[in-house]
């Protein structure tokens, strides 16, 4: 196997566009568009992330509600967030678990944060919260 050791990849035509060949060898995919730009694993009992990427801080905005603050902002508010939680403060799941992100999307105009909500029969500080965000960085 040949191997290139390098610290930074840059497109020659457009700096932020590098194509990589897909697994089936028939198509290419935009590497930058596919990379998660931010992710975080956190417990709503604490405002300190267990682990994260491009996450500056977490803000507790009420029972079952957290704000994820992004370090390097997105360039618009149309980025995609996937959020999963267990809707319970311990190692189990209640009925009617719902975890949603960007709950104030309509009124959130900043590109540097998004809201999460954890609901398991009632709003609850969920133990396991996982968020990933894809989109365009500023």
């Amino acid at each position, binding site marked *: 196997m040949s191997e290139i050791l*390098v610290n930074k990849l840059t497109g020659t035509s457009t700096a932020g566009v*590098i194509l990589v060949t*897909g*697994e089936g060898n028939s*198509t290419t995919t935009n590497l930058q*568009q596919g*990379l998660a730009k931010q992710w975080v694993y956190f417990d709503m009992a604490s405002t300190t992330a267990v682990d994260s990427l491009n996450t500056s801080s977490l803000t507790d905005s009420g029972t079952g509600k957290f704000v994820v603050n992004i370090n390097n902002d997105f360039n618009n508010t149309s980025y995609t967030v996937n959020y999963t939680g267990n809707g319970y403060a311990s190692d189990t799941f209640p009925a009617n678990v719902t975890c949603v992100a960007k709950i104030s999307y*309509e009124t959130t105009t900043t590109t540097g944060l998004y809201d999460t909500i954890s609901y398991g029969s009632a709003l609850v500080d969920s133990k396991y919260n996982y968020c990933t965000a*894809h989109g365009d960085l500023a």
Partner: protein
Amino acid sequence: MSTLKADTIQSTGGGAATLTKQRAAKAWANFNGSGTLAVRDSFNVTSISDDGTGLYSVDFSNAMSDGNYAAPGCATYFGNDSATGLVYAMRTSSNVYTEHGTAGFALRISDNNADSALDSGSVELTVMGDLA
């Protein structure tokens, strides 16, 4: 810092190069499914169809190699932070796709309490797996 400038990266055999410890998403989308469907932003998604209340179909620009990909997502009431929420789930639709087709997939948004299908003002999804 060393910098490699290239537009396309392939393996020496012309196939997919191995990106050490990296796996990129192959598609993602953020769309408004309430009223007239509007895609806010997307990657490798050629279209999203409104199949009825709470029912949507996502078409890929470049197909996946099989139906074994992961497509997590979530949905919200638009601008509403009420305690109840919406559930994002795959669905099988014989006249659109079987669940997890290579060309796309179908999904259903429902209320978490009543399990009634509802349109969402913000559906966000990501697709991880192998391209064709």
